[in-house]
């Protein structure tokens, strides 16, 4: 966040607050159950991403032909006359570090980007807690990075949702503040899984890649508002917007004398921005998904958390 001299008055953000609807809890519960079950089903002989391979016993599941017989529970077979395998996970509980960008730019869109990021983060927390992870929730924006919220048990999901619901888009500090800050990087260092939710517009990829290390997995959730994907939705010209304002710097930009040409150039730049993160993620084994804040988290989050 460089201090731009062109900072000026910023119009009110359309969606600065996070409102988690009443159905949200049931949605993330169902989502977490579904995602955890799917991971358990894929645990044997598959990519193990969310589910660890440690010795902590988690439970049983029906045996599938071809599975490692060492996991077969003979006692249960004797009692129930049905084949089951034991499911374990790492005894060392995985730590998740979930960062949400709550800078002013996340207040853009209807629904807002922060709303979408918070819903995705909440669903991720639910999944993580279901899988026994210890979760640290941090956010940027406002007066500065928030105090981390520690969540260790499923019962603490409510605390996490409260923290998410209290987020408000504002200020200039975005993900860059979180990933470039040595203190935050230190907090994330011991985590096996880092989830970053934001628009990734003003984040230095190098700072993000610095978070990688060891077997740590990095998930980048890039959310953009519908009008950011397609500014013509906001209207341009006599019947629409005269200028677009960067909510953080206050800089005003216009499509140019030829709005159609200006929009084409914008779309090219946005495509390049998203592609850059996508390519970077692919090159470094990082999970990356970009979506519209109008999308439901159930649509993109499974791929992001894979």
């Amino acid at each position, binding site marked *: 966040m460089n201090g731009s001299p062109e900072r000026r008055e910023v119009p009110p953000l359309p969606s600065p607050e996070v409102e988690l609807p009443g159905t949200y809890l049931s949605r993330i519960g169902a989502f977490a159950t579904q995602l955890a079950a799917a991971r358990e089903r894929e645990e044997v002989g598959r990519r193990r991403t969310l589910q660890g391979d440690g010795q902590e016993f988690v439970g049983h599941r029906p045996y599938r032909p071809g599975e490692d017989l060492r996991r077969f529970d003979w006692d249960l077979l004797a009692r129930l006359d049905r084949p089951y395998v034991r499911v374990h996970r790492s005894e060392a509980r995985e730590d998740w570090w979930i960062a949400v960008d709550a800078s002013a730019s996340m*207040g853009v869109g209807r629904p807002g980007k922060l709303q979408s990021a918070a819903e995705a983060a909440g669903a991720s927390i639910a999944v993580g807690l279901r899988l026994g992870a210890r979760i640290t929730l941090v956010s940027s924006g406002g007066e500065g990075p928030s105090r981390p919220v520690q969540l260790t048990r499923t019962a603490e999901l409510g605390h996490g949702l409260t923290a998410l619901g209290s987020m408000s888009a504002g200020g200039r500090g975005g993900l860059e503040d979180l990933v470039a800050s040595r203190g935050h990087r230190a907090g994330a260092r011991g985590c096996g899984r880092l989830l970053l939710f934001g628009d990734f517009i003003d984040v230095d990829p190098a700072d993000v890649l610095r978070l990688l290390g060891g077997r740590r997995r990095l998930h980048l959730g890039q959310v953009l*508002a519908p009008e950011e994907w397609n500014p013509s939705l906001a209207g341009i010209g*006599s019947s629409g*917007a005269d200028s677009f304002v*960067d909510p953080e710097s206050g800089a005003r*930009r216009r499509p140019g*004398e030829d709005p159609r040409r200006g929009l084409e150039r914008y779309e090219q730049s946005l495509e390049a921005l998203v592609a850059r993160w996508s390519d970077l993620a692919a090159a470094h084994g990082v999970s990356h998904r970009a979506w519209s804040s109008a999308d439901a988290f159930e649509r993109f989050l499974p791929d992001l958390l894979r």
Partner: protein
Amino acid sequence: MTALGILGWALTVPGALAGLLLPLGIILLSFRRRQPRLVALGTARLFEDREASAASRRRWQLSGSRWWAVVALVLGILAAGRPRPAAEDQAVFVLTVHVDRSPSMFLPAEPSEPGGERRIDRAVDAATAWLASLDPAVERAVVRWRALEPGGLDVTLDAGDGCPAGLLEAPSRANPNPRWGRLVAPGAIFVTDEGLAPAALRSSGVGLFASGGLAVPGAVAAGSDGLLNWSGEDDAPLQLGAEDEDLRVVIGRELAAPLRSLASLWAEERGLAVGGAPQGASLTIRQAESPADDSGNPRSSSTVGRDGWSARVEVSRGPSADGGLSADGGPIADGGLSADGDQGWRPWLLDEARQCLVRARRGEVEVGFSRILPEPTSMEAFAVSWARLLDEHLAPPGAVVALQERRAAGAAVSRAPALAGALDPEVLSRRARRASRGRRAELLLSVGAAAAGLLSLVLRLRGSA
């Protein structure tokens, strides 16, 4: 308006220009520093165009749709104003002033001032004053002055030139009162002494300048005993006045002998003097001028007669082309003086071929035959017939004015003619051409306004799409 004037155009409905306030308001609103509509966008920086630079280039915004809307409004308002080419020339009105020169017009306007202003002077002064008041810049007029008498003056002058002096001179013979109804036409102006029939004349748009005037006492008839005077009061008996100068008769020497003898006897019987110059004579009896002798045309004989007599006469060719005297002296004046024609002649004796051999008018008798061969069949009838002719055309002395002419003429009237209908046909033609051009311009402006309005609408819809 000024711009239109420079371009040689004007608006028929200038009030329509008030509608220009609407497009002007739109333009002024475009100048108004309005709050820009800003939309927050986290990716705003991806736009290349910085607003600051754009703002420095353009302080106000008149969108394409609004610009075309302004154009449509301006064109529509101009069309509503009904543009016409401005007058390329000054208006030229053709006015015809018919001057009544009947005897009453030469009576004094004030009976108490016999030598003072006459009715004709007063009426003509009123007409010339109005003509002089016309603004040459917009009401330039040419005036045709016409004396309402056979062979009278007929000249065309500019409005400011005044009345021709000849019109103010009393005619040698008394003229009848004009038939005004036949003279009603666009641009006609009647100069007379009586107010005529106001309602009919007003609706016709003719001008009327009447002197009015009080009754003028004086001689209304002449007899062998002297003049009969009228006191100026209606129903008052005429009084025999003092004997005036003798009435004089001029008898042409070339007249046929019987006729000449008869005329002399008639004059003697009536107590009239014989001889002297034709000017001032109460009656002149003369032989029609005959070019036959000079041109070698042969004389012919014809049998004529009326009132119980007949005679064979030797015809001398008269002034008419077909050999006889002109029965009516030429075409009837459009002023319709009377049925007796332009010169006032009336036929009195026709030959077998219906050619006029004797014609007469007030104070004059013209004979178209030179000899009577032999004497008329009935000399008594011949004498009575001719005596009646001479009696009828014996002109009274100058002081005698008919009683009807001496009556009061009422109040003075001054009413200008309606100029609208008096335009020169050429001017009207030019105006028609200009009107046609104006209608084409109006149509073009209307079509342009519709096209611009449609374009504005399309741009507006595309902009909001």
